[in-house]
């Protein structure tokens, strides 16, 4: 098992992993956009050449007046057959460190389905995210999302 920075040749594997696990999918160009704008932020878990988990992350482009720069997790997923290894946690931590170090991100945000208890457990209990907001009908199928946030001040150098 190898946890490392995502490379260009990983993107198709990330896309395949995403298609198998989540209903929110993207064309390759969107993955390229992330990798070629913020090359330090996306990580993969790789085993024997196969991408079994990934985090696709960016810095928020539209920063509101008075708001600090902050990171955003576009998508994170681990194949079902590779769960219980703490991969999601490690991918998240690597990405957060890069957000704080390279981009001086003050916090990182993400969206999660209200009904996704497993993910909620990871973000809230293991990683320390808090719920900032509820965004109604955020997902294409109409489900609400929790907009969650985690401060990265502790990683500032």
């Amino acid at each position, binding site marked *: 098992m190898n946890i490392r920075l995502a490379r260009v040749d990983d993107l198709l594997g990330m896309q395949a992993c995403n298609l198998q696990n989540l209903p929110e999918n993207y064309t390759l160009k969107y993955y390229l956009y992330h990798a070629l704008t913020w090359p330090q932020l996306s990580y993969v878990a790789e085993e024997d050449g196969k991408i079994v988990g990934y985090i696709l992350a960016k810095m928020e482009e539209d920063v509101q007046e008075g708001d600090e720069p902050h990171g955003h997790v576009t998508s994170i997923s681990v194949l079902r057959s590779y769960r*219980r290894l703490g991969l999601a946690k490690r991918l998240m931590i690597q990405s957060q460190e890069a957000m704080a170090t390279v981009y001086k991100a003050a916090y990182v945000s993400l969206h999660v389905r209200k009904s996704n208890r497993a993910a909620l457990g990871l973000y809230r209990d293991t990683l320390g995210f808090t719920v900032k907001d509820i965004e109604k009908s955020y997902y294409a199928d109409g489900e609400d999302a929790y907009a969650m946030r985690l401060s990265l001040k502790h990683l500032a150098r």
Partner: protein
Amino acid sequence: MPPAGIPPSRALPSKESGLFKEVLHYYEDRQLKKGLKTADAILKKFPNHGETMCMKGLILTHMGRRDEGLELVKQGVRLDLTSHICWHVFGLIQKGQKNYEEALKSYTQALRFDKDNMNILRDAAHLQTQLRHYDALVETRHTLLRLRPQLRQNWIALAVAYHLNGNLTETKNVLEQFERIVKNVPDYDVEMSEILLYHVRVLEELGAYTEALVLLDTSAKSRAIIDRVAIMEFRARMLSKVGSEDAQQAWQGLIEQNPGCYDYYKGFLANRGVDLDAITDETRAPALQALRDFSQQFPRAATPQRIALAIAAGDEFQELLEPYLRTRLEKGVPSLFTDLKALYRTPQKRDTIESVAQGLLDALAHPPDAPCPPSIDPTTYVWTLYFLAQHYSHLGQHARALALLDTALAHTPTLPELYLFRGRVLKRAGDPYGAARWVDQARLLDLQDRFLNARCGKYRLRAGLIEEAVEVFGLFTKKDAPSPSQDLEDMQSLLYLTEEADAQLRNGNYAMALKKYIAIQKVFDDFEDDQFDFHGYSVRKFTVNIYLNLLKWEDTLRSHPAYVHAAIEASRILVRLHDEPSLASKSASQSHLSDAEKKAKKKAKKAEKKVQEEAKKAGNSTNEDKGLDASPVKDEDPDGTKLLQAPEPLERAAKLLKPLATLAENNIEAWVATYDVSVRRKKYLRALQALSRAHALDADSPELHIRVVDFKRRWSSLSEKPSETVASAVTSALSKLLPDEISLELFNSQYLQQHSSRGAAVLAAAKVSRSLGAPREEVESILFNVLNADVELDFETAAAINAFLLEIQSPREDEFRTASQQKFALSTLFAPRAELPQLRKSAVQKEITEGEEVKEEIIS
């Protein structure tokens, strides 16, 4: 060549000249209606003004009236061949159509008449990069830099151009010059950081490690480079290369920062003289010691422990294995077997794993009827059973694996992994219907899980249940998509497209299979196009390192297994079409859309009608900018018959296979496919070269054997050989594959004798025998030998032999099928044809018990 004088038809009187400038402004602001109106005003008085005509054509294209627009632009160019505006517009349109070669020609023309036009130069640079014309790119970037040296991107773009053109020294010079003169760099600037990291990379590639380290350290200290991970990685790598004492600490720092990264441990140990891929008795002990230390320092990290398992041997391996296995079985880690699978390449390790795991199981075993004793952890018990099932199935002992799974299922009927794997075992044993049924059971345990859903869909496709598969996939695809298949294709799911194509092929639906393989080809074309926008974007963002990696990846894009497979399979269909043109018309009459597909077709038609109506309403009164990109093509061939009937199948096949010659050169199937196409195109030398390449990869390959004979027969039967040179080249190359003096019958029987213990080889020999005119009984007796115990035969080959016996209308086909069924007891591929509908039905049955009852009926 200097531009000719302005032709009289270009010059406009002051009023219209002013109007023309307005047209340009309107276009830039995308005020399309106004632009169109103004252009028409000019054309009323000056109907042959090429430049206005081109602008009007450009505006029309933006408004969605693409065919009209293109025509007008072409006319405009013809009317004013020395106008840079006309050529620029033409180039823009062609670029939008992804016709990069032609677009570059237009841009080059435009530059002849306005050589310092920054817009044209920039677009030309992007096209040159896309087309890999790096010499020209360097020149263009030089011009751009000369014109605007104050723009930072122009410096970086030039450096990148030199790099792409293979001139690292010049790259270095440009970067150094840039760094000397750049001013006002803000503190902690990400862009400058990336530029400096790029510079370090260039120095590393030049082998100037010391210089690179100096630049790296200075920049890191001054916080000019702010990417900590990149700094540490570069440092560790280069300190190792120069043999510095500080290297060890650098690697250590990397591991501390990310203890899950295999590459860091590899680098650390390599720095100590230990090659993880080539462990020796001397290096083993210090390596294990280091890994032990790391494991203690990072108890939560699996990586150092796993590496230790890879390099340990004998008793030490067993000592390390036990706790590794035990912790993960107690935790219930589903990927444990996959994790250890690589170790099975070493037979002793495989045996040790078996004995340790079996030992753990024996300690946990308890009577199935009684409840689990308190001393035994039920989780560990189930996962140990699961692990051993995977172990035995991997070794081909499928019945044993099934028994273990059944024990586990009785114990914990709610664990999807057990059902999933039971399905997988049945798949490996040749029962795709049972496999699909069990995976469906897994899916039903957690309907929110897309992974289980996707597996179920895949297994249904493998069982040839295409409609049922699409139905399942449809539970997670977008509701507003025309169909689940279309959504998965739009989202570029290579896994889905491949599985569906393969399923259609297995079902004999060549049209749909070809359609899906070509869809895969289109996806890769899109992947290739995706890089285009980044030629400008990455230079503006200064993310040069990864941009260069992108170009490199694109250069070998079609080496991806999904493309290789699609190209090979599509070419096979096209070759069959060439050999049997009636297949195309037969397919058309047979083609029936399934209910789901009919529904989707109706839905798509309705949606399209709606769009057309809306467009009509809005069309003339909208300013909506539809851009220059070619609009998405409507699907006018839903059942693939048009594709199947399209002309020149061999040429199309050759085009598909072309990239494989360099990108899949170690793939024997690719060479065999290339042969099949080349020989039918009468390119004998190329065909023979393909055989020689295949021969170099695997001289005993059954598919190769068939083709060698095929070539000799075709060549010998040529009434007129092509030129002398070709003939002599062929003769000499052929003699290396097939001794000249012996008859083909003898050659074949020698091959058969040599490889009589390999089922696939026997089948090949039988096919050749048949093609040489041997009587059917003889062919049959060759084939029946595979049933002997000492012949290596898998169910796939047995099924292929079965199909061949059907093809030659052998009366012994039933006999063979029955014998195969006995040999492959768990397989359902040899069931009597009459049972097929029932088997298919059972695969999507809801309850397992129902299915079992049905099966009993079949047997009795």
